[in-house]
C-alpha cells in the first residue's frame, strides 16, 4: 500500500511541559489506524500538529510524498488533512448543506456563492456516503447528535481528504449509531482514504482499525496490527504497567427502597415511566440517545416537571419543584456535560470541589472557614486520587478525567442518599474511568442508592446490580441477576424479542 502520511521524530512542548516526544508512524492509503492513549498522553497534540493547529518543535511530516508543514488549519485542509474533533464544531443555526461548505463555498464566475452547485455537490456527497439527502435542508440544530456527527464526517471527507482524523467520534453515540458510523468509515477506507481514529472504546477496535498505535506520556508506546490487539496488552502499553481494568465488586445486598417513581410522564420525552432504587444498590439506566434517560434523571432532580405520575423518597411523597428541593431530600446529580453543566471554569480545584457544601463550612456570621474547607478538599483529593498540583490549581488545568473526579467528589461530599450519575466516565481515560467506576460501587456498598446512566454498555454491566433499559420514552426492560447480559440489554434497546 502507498504511504500517505509519514511522521518522524515529532516533538512539541508547551512551556515546560513536553506534550509529545519523538513520535513517528506511517499511514497507508485506505488504512484504518487507531490511536490509543490515556488522557494527557499527547493524542490531541499529535492531531493538532498534523492538522496545522500547532507547529512542531522538531520532526518531519510528509503527506503523499510531499513535505507537510501546514502553517494553519486551512493549509492542512487544503493539503488533504481533515479532522472531526472530539467536541465537533459546527454551525447550529445554518443549514446542513451550508455546514458542509463553510470555508470552501463553491463560487460562480462572478465569485458569488454558487448555491446551485453547493446543492448538487451536497446531494452527490450524501448519496455516496449513504446518508439521507433530505437532511441537507434542515438546520443543523434540528438534527440528532448522530446525524450531526455523520454530517460532519461528510464535510470532513468532501475536501478530497487524503487523511481523515476522527477524534473519539463515538463517545457521544449509542451502539446502533456508532455502527452506522463504522459503515461510513468502512466505505471511506475502501475509497482509499487513510483514517486515523482515536477512541477509548476497546470493543470498537475490531470495527475501525487495521492497526493501532499507543501513546504514553507523549511517546510512542506501541505500534501493532489489529490482529495482535489483545486488550490486556493495549492496556499495559497505555498505562505502562500491567493493569486490572475490571473493577472489584462485592455482591449487592440491597436494603430498603429509597427512590420510587411511578407512571412519570413528561410530554415529548417520557410516557409512564417507573423505577425503584434501593439502598446499597447500583441501578443502571441504558437506552439509545433520545430514549429519555437524561429526562428521567432531570425529573427526579426537579429540573423537569412531570405532567403525570408520582415519586416517593423513602415512602414519602416527593414532588420537587427545583434542584434545591431535590438536594434537600438528599439527592445529588452529576450532569452529563461537565463543561457546561458542572465545572466552574474560572475557579480553582478546591472551590469547585466544595461548591455544594459551603453552608456546612460556614462559621459565625456566615464567614467561610477556609481552613476547614482546605482540610475537606484535600481529604477528597487524596481519597479520589485527583491529580492536582495544589488545591488552588485552576480546575481547567486538570485533565478531563480529573475534572470529572472533582465533580464526582463534589457530589460525594454532601453524603447523598441518592446519587444520580449521568455518563460519569464519558471521554475520559481508562485508568481514571476505572477509579470512578470502582468508587461509585463502593459508595453504593456504603449505603447510598446509586443510579447510573451510561451509553458504555460494558461499563454499565460491570457496575450495575440491576439495569433498566429505556426505549422511546418508556421502560423496555428491567434486568438483573442471570438475565442481565449484554445480549438481553441490546435486544431490549432495539425492541427485538427473544
Amino acid at each position, binding site marked *: 500500500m502507498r504511504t500517505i502520511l509519514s511522521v518522524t521524530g515529532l516533538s512539541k512542548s508547551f512551556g515546560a511541559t513536553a506534550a509529545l516526544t519523538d513520535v513517528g508512524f506511517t499511514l497507508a492509503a485506505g488504512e484504518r489506524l487507531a490511536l490509543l492513549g490515556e488522557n494527557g498522553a499527547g493524542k490531541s497534540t499529535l492531531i493538532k500538529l498534523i492538522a496545522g493547529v500547532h507547529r512542531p518543535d522538531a520532526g518531519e511530516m510528509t503527506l503523499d510524498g510531499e513535505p507537510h508543514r501546514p502553517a494553519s*488549519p486551512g493549509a492542512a485542509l487544503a493539503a488533504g488533512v481533515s479532522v472531526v474533533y472530539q467536541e465537533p464544531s459546527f*454551525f447550529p*443555526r445554518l443549514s446542513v448543506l451550508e455546514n458542509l461548505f463553510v470555508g470552501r*463555498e463553491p463560487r460562480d464566475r462572478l*465569485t458569488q456563492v454558487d448555491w446551485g452547485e453547493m446543492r448538487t455537490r451536497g446531494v452527490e456527497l450524501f448519496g455516496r456516503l449513504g446518508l439521507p439527502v433530505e437532511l441537507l435542508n434542515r438546520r443543523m440544530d434540528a438534527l440528532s447528535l448522530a446525524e450531526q456527527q455523520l454530517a460532519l464526517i461528510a464535510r470532513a471527507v468532501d475536501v478530497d481528504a487524503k487523511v481523515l482524523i476522527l477524534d473519539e467520534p463515538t463517545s457521544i453515540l449509542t451502539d446502533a449509531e456508532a455502527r452506522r458510523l463504522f459503515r461510513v468509515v468502512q466505505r471511506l477506507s475502501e475509497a482509499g482514504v487513510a483514517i486515523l481514529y482515536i477512541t477509548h472504546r476497546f470493543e470498537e477496535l475490531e470495527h475501525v482499525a487495521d492497526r493501532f498505535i499507543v501513546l504514553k506520556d507523549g511517546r510512542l508506546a506501541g505500534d501493532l496490527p489489529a490482529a495482535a490487539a489483545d486488550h490486556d496488552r493495549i492496556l499495559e502499553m497505555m498505562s505502562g504497567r500491567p493493569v486490572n481494568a475490571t473493577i472489584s465488586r462485592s455482591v449487592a445486598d440491597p436494603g430498603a427502597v429509597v427512590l420510587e417513581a411511578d407512571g412519570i410522564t413528561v410530554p415529548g420525552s417520557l410516557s409512564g415511566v417507573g423505577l425503584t432504587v434501593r439502598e446499597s444498590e447500583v441501578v443502571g439506566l441504558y437506552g439509545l440517545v433520545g430514549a429519555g434517560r437524561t429526562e428521567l434523571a432531570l425529573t427526579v432532580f426537579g429540573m423537569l416537571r412531570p405532567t403525570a405520575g408520582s415519586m416517593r423518597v423513602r415512602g414519602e411523597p416527593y414532588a420537587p419543584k427545583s434542584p434545591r428541593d431535590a438536594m434537600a431530600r438528599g439527592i445529588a446529580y452529576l*450532569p452529563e*456535560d461537565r463543561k457546561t453543566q458542572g465545572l466552574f471554569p474560572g475557579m480553582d480545584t478546591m472551590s469547585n470541589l466544595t461548591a455544594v457544601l459551603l453552608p456546612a463550612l460556614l462559621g459565625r456570621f456566615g464567614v467561610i472557614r477556609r481552613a476547614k474547607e482546605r482540610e475537606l478538599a484535600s481529604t477528597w483529593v487524596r481519597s479520589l486520587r485527583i491529580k492536582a498540583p495544589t488545591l488552588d490549581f485552576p480546575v481547567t488545568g486538570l485533565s478531563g478525567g480529573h475534572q470529572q473526579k472533582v465533580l464526582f467528589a463534589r457530589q460525594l461530599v454532601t453524603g447523598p442518599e441518592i446519587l444520580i450519575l449521568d455518563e460519569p466516565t464519558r471521554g475520559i481515560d481508562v485508568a481514571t474511568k476505572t477509579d470512578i467506576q470502582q468508587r461509585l460501587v463502593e459508595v453504593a456498598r456504603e449505603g447510598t442508592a446509586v443510579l447510573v446512566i451510561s451509553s458504555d454498555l460494558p461499563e454499565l454491566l460491570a457496575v450495575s446490580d440491576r439495569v433498566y433499559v429505556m426505549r422511546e420514552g418508556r421502560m423496555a426492560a428491567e434486568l438483573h441477576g442471570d438475565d442481565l447480559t449484554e445480549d438481553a440489554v441490546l435486544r431490549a434497546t432495539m425492541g427485538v424479542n427473544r
Partner: protein
Amino acid sequence: MSAVSAVTAPSPRLLTLLRDALLPILLVAEVIFFGLAAPDFLSASNLANVVINSADLALLAAGMTLVVLLAGIDVSVGPMLGVVAWVGASLFVAGLPPLLVVLASVLLGGLLGAVNAGLIVGGRISPIIATLGTAAVFKTVLFVLWNSTDVFAGPVVPVLGPARAGGFPLVGVVVLVVFGIFAYVLRHRVFGRRLFAIGNDAEGARLLGVPVGRTSFVAYVLVGALVGIAALIYVGRVGVVQATAGQELTLPAIAAVVVGGTSILGGEGGVLRTLGGLVFIALLQNGVVLMGVPPLWNGVLVGLAVALAVAFDVLTRRTLDKRIGARK
C-alpha cells in the same frame, strides 16, 4: 442548564413560529394604533418625514447588523457619528468640494471603525467593552473639537438631505440601495456567509480555514464607513453639529437590529429583518410625537423595545438549544 425555562417555556415549534410572525404582527398593530390615535400619521408627508428623519439611523442599523451577526456589537456608532459629522460639516463650511467631503467622511468613519476593529480583533477585547471605551473617547473628542461653537451646515450633496423627487425623499433611495447591497452580500458573497459562520462558532470557522480576524476587521470598518455617510445625512437633516451630536442614535440602531430579529447572540438574522425593525422603531418614535407625548419618553420606549426583544431572543435560543441538549 437553567431549570425554570425547561419547565415553563412553550414548545420549540410554537416559539419559532412566534418569532417569525412577531414583527409583522407588531408592525400592523403599530400602524393601526397610530393611524387611529394620530390622524396625520398615515399622511404621505408624514411618512416622507419619517424616512428623512430615520435615514441616518437606518445606515447605522445596517452596519450594526453585520457585527451583531458576528456575535459582536458596536456601541460607539452614535458618538462616532458625532465626530465625523463635526469634521464633515467643518470641511464643507470651509469650502471643500462636496464629493471630497463625502470621501473624507467615509474614510474618517472607516478609520474610526478600524480603531474599534483593531481593539477587538488585534487586542482581543470583547466588542462591547472595546466600543464602550471608544464611545467615551469619541464623545470627548467631539466635545473638544466643538469648543463651544456649533457648526451650522446644510446638506453636503442633495441626496444626503431632505430633497424629494415626486414626493419621495431621495435619501430613502440611498437607504434602500445600501440595504439591497447588504442583503445581496449576506446571501451571495463569501464575505457574508463568513459572518454567519463566525457568529455561529468562531473557533470552528477558524479551524475550517475561515479568516476570522480579517472578516471581523472588515465588518467593523464597514460599520465605520456607513457611519461616515450617516454623519452627512445627519448634518443634512439637523443642519447643525453640537457637542453631543449623534449620541442619541446608538440605542435605536441596536434596537432596530434586535427588534428585527437578528439574534444578539450572533449567527442568525439579516439586514432585511433589520429594515423591518427599523420601520418599527422609526414609526414608534414618530407616532409617539404625533400623539403629543413629550419626546423625552422616546428613550423609555426604545429601551423597552430593546430589552423585550433581547429577552425574547435569548429565551427562544435557550429553549431551542435545550431541545438539542436534551438529545445528548
